[in-house]
């Protein structure tokens, strides 16, 4: 019950703001669907990173909650798994930064697509486990 109470305000915003300007909260909506016709620009990179920053804040909140639960709680497994997604995403984000700053659109698009797939996987896992993160909509 406490978990629900804790998650609710975060969920409200992260989930409820989906209508705002295809926001970075709803990260890939209009962002991660970028195609060759819509190059991965600095603005896109900014929106991705900004959205991720907010999503990670939600994950951190969940982690902090979990830290207060007894060892062996189901949330332990969830947090560890979410951390593996985070660790997989990190080098991709770094690569994306490099390619976008060099305006290497070919490689940027490849990394972008990979990152989008990872977001989808992560989003599904988070949703299945009731973790308050944006529905990524990819």
């Amino acid at each position, binding site marked *: 019950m406490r978990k629900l109470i*804790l998650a609710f*305000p975060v969920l409200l915003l992260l989930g409820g*703001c989906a209508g705002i300007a295809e926001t970075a909260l709803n990260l890939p909506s209009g962002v991660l669907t970028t195609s060759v016709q819509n190059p991965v620009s600095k*603005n896109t990179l900014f929106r991705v*990173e900004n959205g991720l920053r907010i999503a990670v804040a939600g994950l951190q*909140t969940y982690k902090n909650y979990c830290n207060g639960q007894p060892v062996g709680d189901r949330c332990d497994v969830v947090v560890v798994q979410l951390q593996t997604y*985070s660790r997989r995403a990190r080098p991709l984000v770094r690569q994306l930064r490099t390619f976008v700053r060099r305006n290497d659109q070919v490689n940027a698009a490849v990394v972008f697509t990979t990152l989008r797939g990872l977001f989808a996987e992560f989003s599904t896992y988070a949703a299945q486990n009731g973790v308050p993160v944006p529905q990524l909509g990819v």
Partner: protein
Amino acid sequence: MADIQKIFDIGMKGLGLIQSLAQQSKDITPVIRSLTNVFSKRVEDVTDEELDQIEADLDAALDEFEKPMDKLVPGPKG
């Protein structure tokens, strides 16, 4: 009128998140900055400085999130 109500609702939800995160986060400033970016839709002409800032914020957040949970770190023996 419906639009005004919608904006109000969104604002209230935003405040709810900020309140929740403020209770949980050691430093809420980067989160507020990110939320401000979203609400002000600053995605038209991002400067290198803004990009550097958000990247630093994200890296710091990931560093914190990727740390093992305190309860899972073995304490000193003895």
